[in-house]
């Protein structure tokens, strides 16, 4: 084969690749816009507005929806997160332990609590624990129960995240710490875990977002008026007013927190990406 033959690339008949690509993209846009328009036109907006966007009902929700419901949601979430973090750290260290039974226990724990729906855990905490230990009260009442239930679920996920973070710290860090005279535990606390947390901050924050939504399961524990969080509050009000506006408002309150958190996670992830040399 000669040089000239190689250089003159074979031209297919009909459209070039570029023309084909712009044609197919154009077709996709048309279908997409048509679908959105069809959806928007066919929906009964008047009905929706009546049911979900009654300004006077929305108005009467304030300030309680923030000062009570959102506050409780945040409280439940944070307490669950703290319990999950502490428990998750313990499980992660057990998983990495050189002691067989610890590893085994941690593995079983993770499999069980990752595999069960959070709803079942809530019911279990609400029903089974009082049955099994009659007379004992979980500290903090509803708050304690929620923290425990959310924490048990979160710990399973966080344990795996924390373990991955610890293992992502280069082996040389532990060796350097040991060669300076750190005990294994001290090296873990002073050198390894701080570095691991930098690595896992984005996934941990994601976990916080998930917990935030899971806190709605509190309604299966049976709560007093003062202990209601966003979902329960919205549902109660929806049934007393016979209108769904409170559900929409509650939903917006969730987004008020989850969207900024999501933004923070993306910021941290892109920052972590830059830090990698």
């Amino acid at each position, binding site marked *: 084969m000669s040089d000239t033959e190689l250089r003159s690339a074979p031209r297919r008949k009909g459209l070039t690749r570029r023309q084909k690509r712009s044609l197919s993209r154009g077709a996709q846009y048309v279908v997409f816009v048509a679908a959105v328009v069809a959806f928007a036109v066919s929906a009964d907006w008047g009905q929706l507005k009546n049911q979900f966007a009654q300004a006077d009902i929305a108005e009467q929700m304030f300030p309680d929806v923030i000062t009570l419901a959102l506050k409780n949601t945040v409280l439940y979430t944070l307490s669950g997160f703290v319990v999950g973090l502490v428990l998750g750290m313990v499980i992660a260290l057990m998983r990495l332990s050189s002691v067989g039974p610890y590893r085994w226990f941690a593995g079983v724990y993770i499999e069980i609590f990752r595999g069960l729906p959070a709803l079942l855990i809530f019911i279990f905490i609400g029903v089974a624990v009082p049955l099994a230990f009659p007379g004992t009260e979980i500290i903090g009442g509803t708050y304690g129960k929620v923290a425990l239930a959310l924490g048990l679920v979160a710990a399973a996920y966080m344990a795996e995240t924390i373990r991955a973070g610890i293992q992502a710290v280069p082996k*040389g860090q532990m*060796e350097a*710490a*040991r060669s*300076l005279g*750190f005990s294994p535990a*001290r090296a873990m606390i002073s050198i390894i875990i*701080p*570095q691991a947390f930098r690595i896992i901050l984005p996934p941990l924050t994601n976990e916080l977002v998930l917990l935030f939504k899971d806190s709605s399961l509190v309604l299966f524990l049976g709560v007093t008026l003062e202990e209601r969080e966003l979902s329960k509050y919205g549902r109660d009000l929806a049934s007393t007013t016979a209108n769904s506006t409170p559900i929409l408002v509650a939903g917006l309150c969730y987004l008020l927190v989850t969207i900024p958190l999501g933004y923070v996670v993306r910021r941290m992830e892109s920052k972590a990406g830059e830090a990698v040399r």
Partner: protein
Amino acid sequence: MSRPEIEVRGLHKSFGDNEVLRGIDLEIGQGEVVCVIGPSGSGKSTLLRCVNLLEEPSKGQVLVGGTELTDPDVDIDAVRRRIGMVFQQFNLFPHLSVTENLTLPQRRVLGRDKAQAARVAAENLERVGLAEKANAYPASLSGGQQQRVAIARALAMGPEVMLFDEPTSALDPELVGDVLAVMRMLAREGMTMMVVTHEMTFAREVADRVVFMDGGVIVEDGTPRQVIGSPRHERTRHFLSRLLDPAMAEVEEETSDQVGDGG
């Protein structure tokens, strides 16, 4: 020579079926600088790591300053405080500033108070010529600077012995000199040093003794003049000729007795 600072007796080390060290006997006296050379996989790094028990020997004894490290009842963390170690990859703590890299171990391990740790840190950064980088983070330093900080970090613990595991192998060639200068200074000050290295000039000029290892045993042990200048063993001659003039080496058959890379 008084009692040896480092004493290795009948040391064996295996990784699975792979026997990396096959009976090492070595004594290093107080203030002595010993360079360990040898081809990759000869076990020299493993030997060094056995001296502070980063690798657990399979058999044999290691004594440093008269304390037996291989005694199962010894407080290994306490002994390690007397042994400084410098790694090929520096292993600075990236989440801490240069000063914190030096002060945190002093405070957590030696229990020194903040002011004293800071003072010792500043002194040692001064010694390695990096006082102006005190507040920098490791990522912003060159490899040579990081390695000097790593040396200062080890020195801040007041060790009696310093171990160097190929301290210049990960450095760009133009940065090697600064690190070797610091090591030369340490040697002059009378520090007991065990250095695994490929820097023949350093070995020739600074070392009191050069140990040549191959296949998990010590093949030759003597002054630099003897071992590098007029090696007695064919294996040493062969290694040195390949190291000193790599362009002249010939393609050869892989020998079957080569052990896996221990370093």
